């Protein structure tokens, strides 16, 4: 997704945050900018087929793998170096780590980040663990990149994610890999 195409959606956060103070608005705007350039939409906003090919479905902005899209068993890729597969929505992935789904980052209280605190979000990033203290966050999430982000920027990202429209969408749990991993070479 190009920055030009994503900017209107980042600004949507601003519109929704009209009650915020100027400082908060600036923080949300900065967070939206970071979310856009960091490529969060690439996996967390499902793709749909448009007239020019796959495009982000912004009615589901940052809501992760669509609950209604039940994935069949992942294809068996047994011939290295082919090693992983993704859904057309770019929200479901299968590889040596198992099957993983992009998370719902919207502020929906039950299925997204709506019940999270800023501290819990920071902890999730610093620990690189699901919910801040569970299993490791799975590929292809580039959590190692996010761990390099400074605290002020992480807080801005969280503020932005809390400002966007909530989408109720329960993302499936990940699945364990096949017992025999695909050889790397």
């Amino acid at each position, binding site marked *: 997704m190009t920055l030009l195409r994503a900017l209107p959606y980042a600004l949507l956060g601003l519109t929704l945050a009209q009650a915020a103070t100027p400082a908060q608005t600036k923080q949300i705007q900065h967070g939206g900018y970071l979310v856009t350039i960091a490529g969060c939409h690439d996996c967390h906003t499902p793709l749909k087929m448009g007239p020019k090919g796959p495009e982000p479905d912004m009615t589901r902005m940052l809501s992760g793998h669509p609950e209604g899209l039940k994935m069949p068993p992942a294809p068996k890729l047994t011939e290295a170096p082919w090693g992983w597969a993704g859904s057309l929505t770019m929200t479901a992935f299968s590889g040596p*780590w198992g099957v993983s789904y992009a998370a719902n980052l919207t502020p929906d209280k039950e299925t997204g980040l709506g*019940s999270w605190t800023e*501290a819990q979000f920071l902890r999730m990033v610093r620990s690189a663990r699901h919910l*801040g*203290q569970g299993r490791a966050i*799975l590929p292809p999430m580039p959590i190692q990149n996010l761990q390099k982000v400074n605290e002020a920027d992480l807080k801005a990202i969280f503020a932005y994610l809390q400002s966007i429209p909530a989408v109720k969408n*329960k993302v499936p*749990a990940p699945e364990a890999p096949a017992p025999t991993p695909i050889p790397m070479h």
Partner: protein
Amino acid sequence: MRPLLPALLALGALSGAAKAPAPPRLLSQTGLYAAPGVVAARNLAYAPQYPLWTDGAAKARWIHLPAAIDGRDEGGWVFPVGTKAWKEFAFGGRKVETRLLWKTGSATWVFASYAWNEAQTDAVLVPEGGLPDAAEVAPGLRHAIPSRTDCRDCHGQEQVEVLGFTALQLSPDRDPGALHGEPLRPGLITLKDLVARGLLRGARPDLLTRPPRIAGDPATRAALGYLQANCASCHRADRPIPGLDLDLRPAHALRTALAPGSFPVPGQPESRILSPGHPERSVLLHRMGSRDPIAQMPPLGTVRVDQAAVDHLRRWIADVPFAPSH
């Protein structure tokens, strides 16, 4: 100028300054030993009645209390500044690591892990990110010394707890059926000792005559004690995990674990976190019995399934017709 620095550091610690000092580079510099291999007399040995499973490691634990614990909140003792707790892990008769929890200010704790050297004479501070390949615990399985972030995952962020040193864990009403429990040997400190030495104040007056005990038949007592020690440091309502209303502390486990959860047992759409009468539908058992990185519980600190615990929990879930306690 030289003597000023230690003085300032000490002042910082006493005033509860947020900036914690760096842990010493060697275990021998932490105050655990009076002489090589000899634990200092001021450090009190203890053994919790419900130990944490760490792949069958043999453990030894000591605590130094420079003053009394504030025991007014039985579920959350407040330790004096200067408290140090050590836990030593050994596999196959060799010491592998010793962890240190050190309270340096009113809200400041230092976490450190030390990896033992080949000669077993001392242990060296492990980098903040941990040590992934510290020792073999079973063919092809390696023990990882956790990162300091991982330490805080279990011991807490702001309100740090010494998990094995609580009223329940030191209760003289010790559970004879505790999984992997150690008998109370002479020299191990108990609640009674703490009170007698003036190291616990503010506790309820009948603490020693009516000490903490998990309610239930022997199988339930052992099962809930195991969940308390191995699961409830994370799964507790007073430190909620977003979107997960699971509290595995003894008084709450049977009520909150009946929910479906978000991670069903594969092939069991009717599964619940804990499904009475149906071990095969119980997510808790499935995840305890897995060491797949996605499914395993606990998610860190272990690479081997605790089969004795899985077997006990399976029998308990199958046989005990329990009802929600609330």
